[in-house]
């Protein structure tokens, strides 16, 4: 369970959000509403001005207690809009990066399962520069999963793709449900959110305007 109660001043408005999330929660709202900022605050890439963030009982940020766990110790996976694969590493090394950094032992079973789930088998020896946009996003999802996160953030993972590529990735995102991994899915597309999320947190102008099920999508 993730609980978020934070405030942060941004250039054009003040972000002030409070919500709790288990399962798959969509942060839904128009572009520029502050959704990505919320994801960055949860991941530890940005620091709230004040408030509290906790995950499964562990406090990740608490301004009152002066706690701010750095991003690399939060074990929160993040799939970015643009993939952000490491251009100097092969797909296989990109996938292995989280395990390598965390000093985990090799887990061939997890590796094989995720490579199969995302159909990455033929891409392993390639470099990110030679991948299509859709392939890149699949590798990015696999890379985040193989770091064995406690929570997965997906920030508009389909935004940089055309309609055909979106249709290609969506089934993979639905398969993520099998992982039984809590997820935060950031999007402004109702049709994506409907297929993936159980809970919807609607954000507008930096504020939570509604929390509920997918019926909020209208």
């Amino acid at each position, binding site marked *: 369970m993730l609980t978020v109660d934070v405030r942060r001043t941004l250039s054009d408005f003040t972000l002030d959000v409070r919500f709790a999330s288990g399962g798959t929660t969509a942060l839904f709202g128009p572009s520029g509403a502050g959704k990505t900022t919320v994801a960055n605050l949860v991941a530890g*890439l940005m620091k709230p001005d004040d408030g509290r963030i906790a995950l499964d009982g562990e406090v990740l940020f608490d301004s009152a207690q002066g706690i701010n766990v750095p991003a690399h110790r939060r074990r929160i996976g993040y799939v970015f809009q643009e993939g*952000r694969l490491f251009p100097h590493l092969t797909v296989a090394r990109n996938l292995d990066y989280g395990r390598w950094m965390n000093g985990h032992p090799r887990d061939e079973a997890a590796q094989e399962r995720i490579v199969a789930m995302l159909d990455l088998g033929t891409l392993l020896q390639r470099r990110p520069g030679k991948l299509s946009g859709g392939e890149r996003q699949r590798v990015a999802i696999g890379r985040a999963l193989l770091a064995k996160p406690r929570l997965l953030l997906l920030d508009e993972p389909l935004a940089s793709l055309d309609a055909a590529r979106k249709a290609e990735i969506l089934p993979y995102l639905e398969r993520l449900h099998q992982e039984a991994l809590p997820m935060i899915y950031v999007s402004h597309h109702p049709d994506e959110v409907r297929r993936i999320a159980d809970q919807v947190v609607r954000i507008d102008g930096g504020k939570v305007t509604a929390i509920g099920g997918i019926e909020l999508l209208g």
Partner: protein
Amino acid sequence: MTNAAPLLDLTPEEWTAIRLSLRIALTATASSLPFGIAVAWLLARKRFWGKGLLDGIIHLPLVLPPVVTGYLLLIAFGRKGVIGAFLAEFGIVFAFRWTGAALACAVMSFPLLVRPLRLSFESIDRRLEDAASTLGASPLKVFFTVTLPLAVPGLIAGTLLGFAKALGEFGATITFVSNIPGETQTISAAIYTLTQIPAGDAAAARLVMVAIVIALIALIASEWLSRRAGQRFHGE
């Protein structure tokens, strides 16, 4: 190729100057590289008090007359210099030693080493570093697994420029550690000496050839390394 044989028939003294030049330039480049990386990273990434001053000091050897830089080194690192006297107590002596020549070359080549590295660091997409941290990489690991590998083109360019400058450095070196055969007499200093004596032309010509060959090899090597680094980033 009958003309080439006597041309490449180098005397022991000339070989000594060549070996010494290479040793001095390699030592200067290798020992200034870690500092160069650190300074380039600081200048590219951090905002701190005195940043402009640091940037200026590093670039001073590029614009000062080399004799002035050599003289300042003599004042600071000479046996009676402020830093030199202190280091001498630990047995570290720069004055009139080949190590002093390496120090002079390192100082003179430092701005050329730092500049391409800094540009490389500045051009790296910092969002890749954020991605690495969400995958569990501490800031130090991010630096060594993402930042530095992506700065390899700048590292190669800076190292080559620095090495070439160190190899050719003359003014600051001769001012600081003089022109002692076998200790501080580099190729450049040897050529200078040979031009001062009536029968030195042939020997000077041989050393000039050697200087050109070394410079060409360094250029080709750097070109080859850069291309390989480029292929790693963009190719299969």
